[in-house]
């Protein structure tokens, strides 16, 4: 479990990134972390990974304070940053150096992922494209078999077939013992995979809810014209009329459209928070 309590964080004198943020993440979920540019998605992941320290409050991961960076904590958490550095060595050599830090690392699994991504561990990082490097690191991240897996924009830079492979692989490793957190702007890439959804804005968590909870309370649909003004939380023009988000008063089973949800949440913060509390 990841328990974030009363967490405040800032980068010096500028406006705080988080103010008294509370968030609890539990095993068996693939969390989708959404937020505008600069909302603090990466900062939150880095606080969870013990790479940044809160100015006040705590971040406890599986019973360990993240900022203590104890080996027992570090060996069971993997953080894949959006921008990364790869040393000028063969993939194989990279694994030889880094895998020993992760007791549950499986080389067999790693080689399977590489094969799926059409890479060989004999290749040098310097000879790979950005997307290929990313795929090698995704494969490594998943092969560490850590209880906590944090990924910052993992699908950025991946080609079309790799995005599908990525979804399949995540579906195969999302077990009941594991917490996976994926921050993304590419919600269309991951729409059917990430659940629950966390939306960050304005130094706080605006929403942390499962798709089931979201569609119980909200209804996503396309209508030719908007009439019931009172119930519409958000609407935007689309090819077939208006895409709208309304309160789900008729017990409808609509599909959560994450882009609409995101826009609705940011434009209607108070109402959304009230609906979900």
């Amino acid at each position, binding site marked *: 479990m990841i328990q974030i309590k009363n967490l405040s964080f800032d980068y010096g004198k500028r406006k705080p990134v988080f103010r008294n943020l509370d968030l609890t993440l539990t095993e*068996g*979920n*693939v969390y989708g972390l959404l937020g505008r540019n600069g909302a603090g998605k990466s900062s939150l992941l880095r606080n969870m990974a013990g790479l940044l320290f809160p100015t006040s409050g705590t971040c406890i991961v599986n019973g360990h304070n993240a900022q203590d960076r104890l080996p027992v904590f570090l060996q069971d958490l993997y953080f894949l940053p959006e921008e990364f550095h790869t040393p000028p060595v063969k993939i194989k050599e990279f694994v030889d150096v880094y895998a020993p830090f992760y007791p549950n690392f499986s080389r067999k699994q790693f080689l399977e992922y590489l094969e799926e991504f059409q890479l060989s561990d004999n290749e040098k990082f310097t000879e790979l494209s950005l997307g290929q490097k990313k795929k090698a690191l995704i494969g490594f991240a998943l092969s560490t078999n850590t209880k906590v897996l944090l990924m910052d924009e993992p699908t950025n830079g991946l080609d079309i077939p790799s995005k*599908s492979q990525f*979804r*399949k692989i995540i*579906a*195969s490793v*999302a077990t009941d013992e594991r917490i996976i957190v994926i921050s993304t702007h590419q919600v269309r890439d991951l729409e*059917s*995979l*990430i*659940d629950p959804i966390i939306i960050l804005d304005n130094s706080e968590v605006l929403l942390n809810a*499962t*798709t*089931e909870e979201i*569609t119980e309370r909200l209804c996503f*649909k*396309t209508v030719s014209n908007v009439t019931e003004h009172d119930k519409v939380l958000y609407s935007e023009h689309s090819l077939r009329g208006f895409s709208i988000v309304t309160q789900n008063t008729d017990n409808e*089973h*609509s*599909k*959560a*459209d994450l882009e609409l949800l995101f826009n609705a949440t940011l434009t209607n913060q108070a109402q959304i928070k009230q609906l979900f509390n």
Partner: protein
Amino acid sequence: MEFRDNKAIYLQIAEFICERILLKQWAVGDKIPSVRELAVQLEVNPNTVARTVEFLQQKDIIFTKRGMGYFVSDEAIEKATAFKKDDFLQNDLPLFFKNIQLLGIDFEELRGRFGEFQEGK
């Protein structure tokens, strides 16, 4: 799997499974793929498939043998047909009516075309 926009994904997966059963690709008494296998194949969150499986159990379309997985139940064909029919009447038919009204297509024309469709088969 390409998901449509208008319906919860767990229900679309339920339809997918019902179609396999109605097409006899998965026969009565057969074991269906596990939650994880389906999640990987359809590229969805395993929790979503778990919800589908629970839903289909409530509808008596599949049943579980402890520790062995999920199986197609004896009455699956009729229950799956009822589920699909209900869904068609509630969701697809109103849209169809709306379109034929908009385009001024009468029942005679439909009857003729349906005849051609059946012959074509």
